[in-house]
């Protein structure tokens, strides 16, 4: 469990004197500056959190010139005016002496940890010269650009495109890409879940109570506590969400797809599915039903260890709450190579009960354009995009564009890990440089040793970050980005059932020489001779452009921080549709049944939900119909190794933030008492965990909250670069234990493998 023990209560975990001394020695860090009092820009500023990718609307104020107090923005109802521990600790990052506040250049070997402060001019000149040389000698495509998504990726990828490279990547294939691609294949677009109105929720280890996504976490708790919603959780580990569930099944790792398919089997065989819905909206039902015939609960029980009678009962309970019931399609962690069909099977269980565009089910996001069309008037402004004339069209293909089966991923962030193949094996051609922004593949990709090899082999590595992250430790040049509390950014879309916008605004004046990423990549572009592609002068110009020069609307969004337009709309929910039609006199005419059911179209080739897909069959022969395939995750004498999120940290990003490191700096390895007993391991023992690619030392946490054949660790710990003083060497580095494996169709990086444990 989360280790909050005596040590943390009495003494900060390893953040004592020695680490501070090392930090002061590091050039370019905040510690090297005189500590000046914080200057706030306003009394209370509405902005957007960036401690994780949920990006909650926040409200922040400077207290006594030395602290920032951050809460949620109360104007954003779905977020309840709340922040999690990470969000509340944002000021601890802002004022961390180990944060970098000056551009740095490497003066030793890559990864050796020798740095010198340089000016922005020198940084830009060095990078521009090198990148232009590489372009001249090897083509622009030999440079890869990757970034955490958001305003920053927009600006970095704009630079990459202006430069002429097709190779830009988000972290999607190491995190949320699987369900995005599955949704694209079935619905033609992403879908959202309406947990708050759900009466019955089936959850396959989507740990919303540790991997906090504020609006969804709150919605699910509200449903459970105030509406009596039943929650069923299938997860190999007793997580917080398992604890809060009405029923928890310790499913065998990687077998979720069998249970999902068996649920579908029962829904179809027992006639519990919504025939009218299928008739009207679904393509490929017959092929799916034929395939699913063999997937009985008994069959799934033998694979997953979930009793057949329970699967059958749960399917019936679920259907009895239809359409206000949902099978949560999950989030991070690609359990097996069958990720694509696992996510499709989860979506299928929703489609069968016809919960699409119904309360408590799944729905399509209603952005301004769609919403205004339904309303017959401009309820919400449609955001303008700064168009730049004459952007070069790259002639080369993307490096992940080798196999047609991945086509849906190319525009969804790309297959991030192909950067390793392209660099190390020139597959499909040789990469020469990698420019990154706020991404930490050393933690989030698999096979860390291969990431190191890649970074060592490249001619140029540039990292833009707030820390010398484990990846930035291998850069040639580090560009210090301002933290989110010092940045202004574009208006961002936060639409759900109705349109909503919000905006990140600086809360304090910039500390040190850091810059926001829009400025960094514009100035670098200018140095590279690409100035014509960056015509905007400031963030304000960009914001004005977005709002078509509507200054009063811009002011309103800035003042309130979060503005929601209209009222929630789900197309097949009569109450909502009638309220909508009454509000807008020019609204589209409502169908006879009181819904907008006739307007529900999908951006798939057939215009329907494709339960089975000819398009997918064309891309990946044999994969058009959802199917069970056996997977190979571990050897017989090994244990499954799985990972997950903790509420106190964000993946590869927050482990050095002082307040958060102080709460939790280590990840113990969860082992079942019987397994531990057989291996002679006792609670608190130092143990070695070894996989086919790596070996780590950690501490055993002996607990009945895990299957006997499985071990678990929270991800993101065990950093190996000495610059991240509070995080280095603490705990198990998960990426170092996971082999490099990619799932078909969705291109996801696999997160389950086999390991052995031994007492040290």
């Amino acid at each position: 469990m989360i280790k909050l023990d005596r040590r943390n209560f009495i003494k900060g975990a390893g953040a004592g004197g020695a680490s501070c001394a090392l930090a002061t020695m590091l050039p370019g860090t905040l510690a090297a500056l005189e500590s000046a009092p914080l200057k706030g820009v306003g009394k209370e500023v509405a902005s957007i959190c960036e401690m994780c990718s949920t990006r909650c609307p926040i409200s922040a104020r400077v207290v006594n010139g030395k602290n920032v107090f951050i809460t949620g923005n109360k104007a954003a109802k779905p977020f309840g005016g709340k922040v999690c521990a990470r969000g509340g600790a944002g000021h601890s990052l802002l004022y961390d002496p180990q944060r970098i506040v000056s551009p740095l250049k490497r003066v030793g070997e890559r990864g050796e940890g020798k740095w010198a402060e340089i000016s922005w001019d020198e940084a830009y000149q060095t990078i521009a010269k090198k990148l232009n040389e590489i372009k001249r000698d090897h083509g622009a495509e030999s440079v890869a650009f990757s970034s955490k998504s958001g305003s920053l990726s927009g600006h970095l990828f704009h630079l990459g495109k202006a430069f002429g490279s097709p190779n830009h990547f988000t972290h999607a294939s190491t995190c949320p890409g699987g369900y995005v691609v599955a949704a694209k294949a079935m619905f033609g677009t992403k879908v959202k879940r309406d947990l708050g109105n759900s009466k019955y929720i089936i959850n396959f280890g989507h740990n919303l109570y540790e991997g906090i996504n504020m609006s969804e976490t709150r919605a699910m708790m509200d449903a459970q506590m105030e509406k009596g919603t039943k929650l069923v959780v299938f997860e190999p580990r007793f997580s917080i969400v398992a604890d809060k569930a009405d029923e928890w099944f310790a499913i065998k790792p990687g077998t979720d797809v069998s249970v999902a398919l068996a649920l579908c089997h029962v829904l179809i065989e027992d006639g519990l599915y919504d025939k009218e819905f299928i008739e009207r909206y679904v393509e490929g039902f017959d092929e799916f039903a034929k395939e699913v015939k063999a997937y009985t609960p008994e069959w799934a029980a033998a694979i997953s260890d979930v009793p057949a009678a329970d699967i059958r009962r749960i399917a019936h309970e679920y259907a009895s709450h239809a359409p206000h019931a949902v099978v949560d399609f999950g989030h991070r962690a690609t359990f097996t190579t069958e990720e694509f069909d696992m996510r499709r099977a989860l979506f299928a269980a929703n489609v069968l009960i016809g919960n699409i565009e119904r309360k408590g089910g799944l729905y399509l996001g209603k952005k301004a354009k769609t919403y205004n069309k339904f309303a017959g008037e401009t309820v919400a402004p449609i955001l303008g995009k700064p168009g730049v004339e004459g952007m070069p069209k790259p002639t080369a293909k993307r490096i992940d564009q080798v196999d047609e089966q991945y086509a849906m991923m190319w525009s969804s962030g790309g297959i991030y890990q192909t950067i390793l193949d392209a660099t190390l094996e020139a597959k499909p051609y040789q990469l020469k440089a990698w420019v990154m922004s706020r991404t930490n593949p050393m933690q989030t990709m698999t096979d860390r040793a291969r990431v190191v090899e890649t970074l060592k082999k490249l001619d140029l590595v540039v990292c833009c970050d707030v820390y010398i992250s484990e990846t930035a430790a291998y850069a040639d040049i580090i560009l210090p980005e301002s933290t989110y509390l010092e940045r202004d950014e574009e208006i961002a879309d936060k639409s759900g059932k109705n349109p909503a916008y919000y905006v990140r605004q600086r809360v304090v004046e910039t500390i040190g020489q850091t810059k926001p990423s829009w400025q960094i990549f514009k100035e670098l572009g200018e140095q590279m001779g690409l100035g014509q592609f960056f015509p905007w002068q400031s963030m304000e110009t960009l914001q004005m452009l977005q709002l078509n020069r509507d200054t009063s609307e811009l002011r309103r969004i800035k003042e309130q921080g979060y503005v929601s337009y209209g009222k929630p709309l789900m197309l097949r929910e009569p109450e909502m549709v009638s309220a909508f039609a009454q509000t807008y006199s020019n609204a589209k005419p409502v169908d006879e049944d009181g819904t907008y059911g006739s307007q529900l179209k999908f951006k798939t080739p057939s215009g329907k939900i494709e339960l089975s897909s000819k398009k997918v069959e064309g891309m990946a022969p044999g994969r058009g119909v959802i199917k069970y395939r056996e997977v190979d995750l571990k050897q017989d004498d090994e244990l499954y190794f799985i990972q997950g999120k903790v509420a106190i940290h964000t993946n590869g990003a927050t482990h050095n933030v002082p307040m958060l490191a102080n709460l939790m700096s280590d990840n113990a390895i969860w082992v079942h008492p019987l397994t531990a007993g057989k291996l002679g391991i006792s609670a608190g023992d130092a143990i070695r965990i070894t996989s086919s690619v790596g070996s780590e030392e950690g501490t055993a946490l002996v607990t009945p909250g895990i299957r006997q054949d499985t071990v678990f660790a929270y991800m993101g710990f065990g950093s190996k670069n000495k610059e991240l003083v509070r995080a280095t060497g603490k705990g198990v580095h998960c990426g170092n234990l996971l082999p490099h494996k990619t799932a078909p169709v969705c291109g996801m990086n696999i997160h389950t493998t086999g390991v052995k444990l031994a007492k040290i």
Partner: protein
Amino acid sequence: MSKRLIMIHDENKCIGCQACNIACRSENGTPDEVTRLQVRVEGPFGDAPNLHFKYNRVSCQQCEDAPCVKVCPTGAAYVGEDGLVSIKAEKCVGCMYCVAACPYKVRFMNPETKVADKCNFCKETRLAKGELPACVTACPTDALIFGDANDPSSEVVKILNTKPSYQDKTHLGTKPRLYRIPTKRGGSSHEQYLGRYGAI
């Protein structure tokens, strides 16, 4: 009638996320080495698959009959007009009698001010400005509820009237003002947890 400020920690809603801990530190400037508040996720207890965690809020209980006040030789530990157990910094001599006397082990010496310290329901930092305590404001799942138990229309009264609740170590006669709503899974018997604070 005077106020009787109390706090309720709903262990069903609590997810052990520590947002309250961080909010408290941020608002009250608690040094790294110490804390006014932790929510310990203890367990799991029981036999698989019927396991459950205990979400244990560890902070000052705002005892109505406070041992820490009784032992303080200088009157630094005192009960204010608001009924809250607080500390007058200028009177504290650092004898640590109160730290030893607190049966809940939640008082500590603040290493920066060298004065005894603990949760005071954010008396100066928040209540004085008409705001709710920082931990209550932050809690993502609304597991913390704060209010006046003497006001029959308050949310805290409504909750105490409708949900089972317990207080910790009531047998000591300290009359804590921190109420807890036990998890359904763990049953309403909190007895099994008594004495767990000994772990601190």
